[in-house]
Every structure is written in structure tokens, then in C-alpha cells.
């Protein structure tokens, strides 16, 4: 084959071009630390990279939801703590009042103290954070209100919520279950027929106040009288009893009411325990997601990033090849028989 001048020059420039484009790519890799700057440079890695980014972003959403639920639970816990101490204080006062040495006037003072505790309790029950009521279920209206001297929860008289019929049972159950919830990656699903959120697939983080305040009435404690089960009204009833004159005052009734009050207060402590369990679950999920997040980031680095040392060595050796090619060009292009003709 004849080797012509143009063949040599064009081949040489093609080679130089390909070497320098390789050099440029390595240079970009070293400078950016990325394996590819465009998807087309490494399609399969890029698609994997997109998947990882999606999962990372999903995790970010879940983690944010967990933080939100955790904050809410912490707030609920401290509000419940306040309620507990109010209840303990009330118990103290009741016991104090039940003491036989107390005069009518003393009892009245205690009664007014109990009324103060009552209003504190109401206030705490209506605690709100970022526009949502801690114990209001999913309503954004003040959950607890006293209408006509009786405590209402979400517009319903608690006294009326007796679980004596199937309909009432259902209503109370739905009020008790009413809760705020977030998606923390448990695979949210919806009921096939009703289309409602399946509560087992989301994280319920709020507790409806009705769960620990109590509902319905009790007609067995004091014969001939229906007494409210809810702590607020019950406390009021006890205060009313204390306010009675010596002649009307009945230690026996107070004692029985106190028994009911102590019994109903237990639910508050149970609720605190439940919240503790939920918080613990969130902690578990948090650490799980942190691990997942870490693993994903590590995978992202392997998929999208370059091995710095390897790339730098490759870059250097490519640089050597480039310089060699340049030097060779000097000798390849110039030489011909004309250089030796006299």
C-alpha cells in the first residue's frame, strides 16, 4: 500500500483527537468526582443512580414525617404529664377534703381549688401545636368545651356517649380511633370497598382525648344518680359534693366518687405508656432509616462517583500517552526523502 502524506496527517490528527477527548473525559472525572456527566456516558449506572436518588428522597420524606410525629408525641407526652399532675393534685385535695376534721368552710375552699384544677384540666386538654389540637383527633376545632355545665368532645356530650347500643358502640369506637397519621413507609394502602386509609399501614400519632378523659355515665356508684364517667365532670361532681352544707354533705358519696375518679384516672397513665411505646417505635424506625440512608448514600457514591486514585492514575497515564503522541507527531510528519536531498 502506498502511504501518502495525507493518510499520515489525517490519521495522526484523528489519533490526537481521540486521545485528547479521552484525556478530557478523565480530566472531568477527576475534577468533578463523578463517573459520568451525561446519562449517555453510562446509561445503566445513571438509571441505577436515578433509582437511588428516588429512594433517598422517599426516605427523606419518611424521616421528616417521623420527626414531625415524634415532636407531636413529645408534646402529647408533656401535656399528659401536666394532666397527670393535675389529677394527682386533685386526688390530694379530695383526700384532704375527705378528712373528717375539715369544716364546711374548708371543704368549700377545697371545692374551689378543685374547680381551678378542673379549668386547668380543660385548658391542657385543649393544648394545640402548629394549629392542631393534641387530643382532638383529626378535627381542627377546639375538641373540649363545656356547654351547659357538661363536657363536650368534638361537639358531643361525653355523657351521651354510653356504649349501650351497637350504634353508640360504633360511634364511640370511631371517636376513639380518630387520629392524625402520617406515612412512614409502611406501605400505605386503602380499603378496597370504602376507599378509606387502612390505619394499619400508616402511623397514628395522636390520641383522641376521649380515650383517657372517659365517656358515658355510671349509675351504679351512687344509687339513684347517674354520674359522668369523664374526669372533668366527675371532678365537678366531687366539688359540688364538697360545697354542700354539713347536713347535705355525704362522706360516703365522696368516697365512692373518689373511687370512680381514681379508677378513671388510670386510663391517663395507660395513654402515657402507649405514647412511650409509640415513641420507642419511632426511634426504631429512625435508626432503621438512618442505616438505609447511609447504605443508599454509599451505593450512590459507588454508582455515580469515581474511584479517585484509579481515575487519577488513569488520567496521568493518558497524559503520558498524549505527550508521547505529540512528540511522535513531530518526527512522523516532517520526515520525507526531501529532508535528505541535496
Amino acid at each position, binding site marked *: *500500500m*502506498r*502511504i*501518502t*502524506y*495525507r*493518510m499520515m*496527517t*489525517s*490519521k495522526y490528527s*484523528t489519533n490526537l483527537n481521540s486521545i485528547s477527548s479521552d484525556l478530557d473525559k478523565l480530566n472531568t472525572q477527576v475534577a468533578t468526582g*463523578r463517573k*459520568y*456527566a*451525561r*446519562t*449517555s*456516558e453510562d*446509561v445503566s449506572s*445513571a*438509571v441505577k*443512580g*436515578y*433509582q437511588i*436518588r*428516588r429512594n433517598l*428522597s*422517599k426516605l*427523606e*420524606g419518611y424521616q*421528616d*414525617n417521623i420527626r*414531625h*410525629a415524634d415532636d407531636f408525641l413529645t408534646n402529647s407526652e408533656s401535656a399528659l404529664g401536666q394532666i397527670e399532675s393535675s389529677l394527682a393534685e386533685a386526688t390530694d385535695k379530695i383526700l384532704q377534703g375527705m378528712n373528717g376534721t375539715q369544716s364546711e368552710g374548708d371543704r368549700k375552699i377545697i371545692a374551689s381549688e378543685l374547680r381551678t384544677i378542673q379549668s386547668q384540666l380543660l385548658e391542657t386538654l385543649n393544648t394545640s401545636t*402548629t*394549629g*392542631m389540637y393534641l387530643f382532638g383527633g*383529626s*378535627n*381542627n*376545632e377546639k375538641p373540649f368545651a363545656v356547654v351547659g355545665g357538661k363536657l*363536650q368532645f*368534638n*361537639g*358531643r356530650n361525653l355523657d351521651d356517649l354510653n356504649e349501650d347500643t351497637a350504634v353508640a358502640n360504633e360511634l364511640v369506637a370511631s371517636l376513639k380511633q380518630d387520629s*392524625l*397519621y*402520617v*406515612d412512614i413507609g409502611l406501605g*400505605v*394502602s*386503602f380499603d378496597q370497598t370504602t*376507599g*378509606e*386509609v387502612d390505619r394499619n399501614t*400508616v402511623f397514628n400519632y395522636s390520641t383522641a382525648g376521649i380515650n383517657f378523659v372517659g365517656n358515658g355515665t355510671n349509675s351504679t356508684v351512687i344509687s339513684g344518680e347517674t354520674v359522668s364517667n369523664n374526669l372533668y365532670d366527675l371532678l365537678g361532681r366531687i366539688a359540688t359534693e364538697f360545697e354542700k352544707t354539713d347536713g347535705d354533705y355525704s362522706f360516703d358519696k365522696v368516697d365512692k366518687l373518689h373511687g370512680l375518679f381514681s379508677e378513671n384516672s388510670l386510663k391517663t397513665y395507660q395513654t402515657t405508656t402507649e405514647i412511650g411505646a409509640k415513641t420507642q417505635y419511632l426511634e426504631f424506625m429512625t435508626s432503621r432509616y438512618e442505616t438505609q440512608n447511609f447504605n443508599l448514600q454509599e451505593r450512590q457514591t459507588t454508582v455515580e462517583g469515581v474511584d479517585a486514585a484509579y481515575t487519577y492514575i488513569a488520567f496521568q497515564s493518558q497524559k503520558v500517552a498524549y505527550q508521547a503522541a505529540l512528540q511522535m507527531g513531530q518526527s512522523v510528519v516532517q520526515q*520525507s*526523502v*526531501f529532508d535528505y*536531498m541535496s
Partner: protein
Amino acid sequence: MASTFLAYNVASRAMEASQASINIVGNNISNVNTEGYTRQRVDIVSVTTSGTVQKYATPVISTGIGAKAVRTTQLRDPFIDARYRTQNAETNRYATMVKGLRNLEDVFDEASTEALQGELSSFINDLQSLSQTPTSSDIAQVARSAAEKVTQTINMYAIQLEEVRTEQTENLEVVVNSEFNTYVKNIASLNKQIQNEEIYGNTPNELYDQRNLLIDKLSGVANIEVSMAPADVITENLSIPHYSIKIKNQSGGEDIMLVDNGRYSEMSLDASDPLDVQLKIVDTTGVERSDVNSNVLDGSLRGYINLINGKGSFADTTVGESDSRGIYYYARKMDIFANQFAKELNAINSNITGATTELPLFTDASGTSTTNITAKNLQVSTAWLKNPSYINTTKNPVIDPPPTADYTATPASSDNILRMIEKMSDKIDFKDSLGNTILTGTFNEYMTSAVSEVATDVELHSNFFKTATNVFQTISDARDSVAGVSLNEEGVNLSAYQKVYNAAMRYFNVLDENLDNIINRMGV
């Protein structure tokens, strides 16, 4: 008997031939880097006397009477030319495709910077935030802003696709007018000049080179076929080649004549439908051909047609539509995406207790209608823009029946938001306008598939282009090996012809000496 001075003529012709050869060496060296130059050679023939009747004459020794430089010819292999041109068309098609596809990839690519996939993920996360506090209108506003970013990014994709389309159409226009039309016109005019020269028996090498160069360039534009037959018969003894260039008709009908000796065709671009541009040619007989798109199978023209009209899987190949994944394909894909996105989320927002009309979150440019949503006009509905809380966070926004007359609570459930999040992360069937499912996956996966499709095409075509370039380089080398100038060879020739020239001069001196002896010394 030969004349005394015959030998002088031999010497003079020898010098003349060497001189011509040395001149050609000079010409070759000068044009070593000239584009399209074909190396030339002086054809030297040996000359003899003949035709004298010697049968009854006193026999004399018949000697040749030297060499004569008759003409200069080009060293060129027409077979390699044909291969060169076919390969050139292929290489140019891939080159055009790679450039255009890279532009398309730039629209969708998210390797270095996040675009729609990132925005979709942020939208989901903002919906998650909204699910935490469904009644707060400021978070609802954040979610709406995220939705706006999604729609704006989709709009941007549509606009960028249009820009790429405009750019590619402009490029195609340039190829049609500044390349194709100019080349055929020049080739036709060269054909005429060359025939004129050939009639007088000249070999217009430089004109041949010019014509070949133009044909080479034309071969990069389309799949052309060059023919030199049948020759034009000027007289009984004189036939000269008749150059014609055509595009073969694939369906077997009449070929499209681009150049027929001095006549040439004219191509035009009909971009009245920007989604489906048509090439038209008025051929050498003045007939307008509208079957150009289906017959141009190669060259940069094909590349541009594939890029602009390429309908990918939406193409109806039975009517000759391009099934390359071009701008049309991706634009259509984005329209389907925009439609589906609006449809799914609007359905969730509208499907609430007590709602009688559609409550769209996403609409077309009117802000209210959802019937003609495209990627370009998708926007957040006017109603949502006015009121961030227009997004229905729950399916049951009113407690029914209310527990007491004066108790009006707004349920703060986030069930609908969770439905939206689920829709955004669930696999759904993406359907084209005919109702065929084109992909089943999440919105994010749909975009990943679009990016990976265009990226795979870029990768594939880059590889095709590399291979084609290598093959082209080999053919080009083979051609250069015949037609190119080798400096070494020219150097050797130069020395050789110089020696011959010197030898001829020496021969002349010997003759002169002989004559001097005959005249001045013989018989003295």
C-alpha cells in the same frame, strides 16, 4: 535513411518529457494538502517511425525515435469512489443523529443537575409535609409551589423540545439550500464545462477534481448513485461520458434524477407542519417529487428527518413514517405524561363527598379546562392558584351529619394527600391517545425511562458513528493510497527525472560531438 538531425529531436523530446514529469512532480507537491486533489502523472509513450515502404529499399536499421509526453492523467479508482460515497452518507447520517440526539439528551438529562425527576420527588415530599398539617394553608402553599415547579419543568421540557426542533429544522434548511442545491447546481455546470473540454480532446483534470469533490460532498447529504453511462455520442468516433446523479426509488418507481449532465434538480423544505417536515424535489425533468422523505435513506438529510419526524413507537411504518425516536416521539411522550399527571391528581382532588363538579388541580392554559392538556400548556388551575387550600386533603371535608348544630369543625385528615402520594409512587398505566398502554410504572420511572431511552440512543448512535467513521477512514485511506500524493514518491520521481533530464543533455552533447567530428574532422 533517417535524417542526421533526427537524433536531436530524440534528445529534445526526452528533455521535454522529463521536464513535463518534473513539472507534474512540482504540481503534485504543491497540491499535497489541496482538498480533493488527485495525483497526476504524465503519460509518456515511446515514438517510432512507421508507414514507410521498405520492402524493396535498402534495408536500414529501424530505431525508435524517443519518447513523447502525450497527456497528464489522474490516478483514481472509481470503485473506491463509490464505496467512499456510500460510507460517507452513512457516517454523515450518524454524525447528524448524534449531534441532534445530544441536544435532546440535554433537555431530559438529570445526571449532573436535577430536573423533572427531582421536582417530582420534592413534590412528593412537600405533599408529605402537607399530610402532617393538612389544615395549614402555608404548607399548602409550599405544596402548590412544588406543583408549580413540576408543571413549569414540564412546560420547559416542551419548550426546549420545540427549540431543538426549530434548530434542527433550520439546520436542515441550510443543508437543503446551502449544500444540496448548491452542489447539484455546481456539478451540473461543471458537467457542461467538462464536456466542452472533452470534445476538444482535453483532459481537464482540475475540473474533474472539483466535480469529484462536489459529488463527495453531495454524498454526505443523501444516498446518491452516480452513473457515467450511456455516453454521449458526439460523432461516430467521439463519445464522451455523460454524468448523472440520482436517488434510487425504493418502491421501484421512477428514480429521482438530481443531476442529468447540465440539468439539475432543486430541493425545497416544506415545514408547514413543523411536526412532520417534508422534503420536495423538482427533478431534472421539471416534475415535482413528493416521495423524497421515503427515498432519502441516508446522509445528513435522513439524519435530520429521523430527528425531526421520528415517531418511535408511535410511527406507522406502513405509510413510511420514521420509527427513530426523534423530537416528535419525545414531545408526544411528554404530552402523555402531562395528561396522565393531571388526570390522576385531578381525579383524587375531585373525588370527595359532596362534590358535584370536577375540582381540577391541573389544567391547560385556560386555568379551568382539562380537555386539551399538553406538556406545553399544563399549569396549576386558577382555582388552586387563588386558594392554596383548594387541594382537598380529605375525602370527607364536612362532618355529616354534624353532631350539634353550632359545632362546625373542619376535618383535618390527610387521607387524600396520602392518596396523592400513593398515586405518585404507584405504578400506573400510561396510555397514548388510542388507549394503548405504552408503559407501566411510576411518574418518576416514566421520566427515567425517557432519559434512558434518549441516552441509550445517544450511546448507540455514538458507537455507530465511531464504527462508521473507522470504516470511512479505512476507505478514505484506501482512496488516498491511490489518489493521494506521497512526498517520498515525488521526491524519488524528482531525482529520477532530473537524472533522465541530465542524461538527455549528455546524449545531446554526444550527438553534438559526433556532428562536430563529422563536419570538422572527418576526411580532413
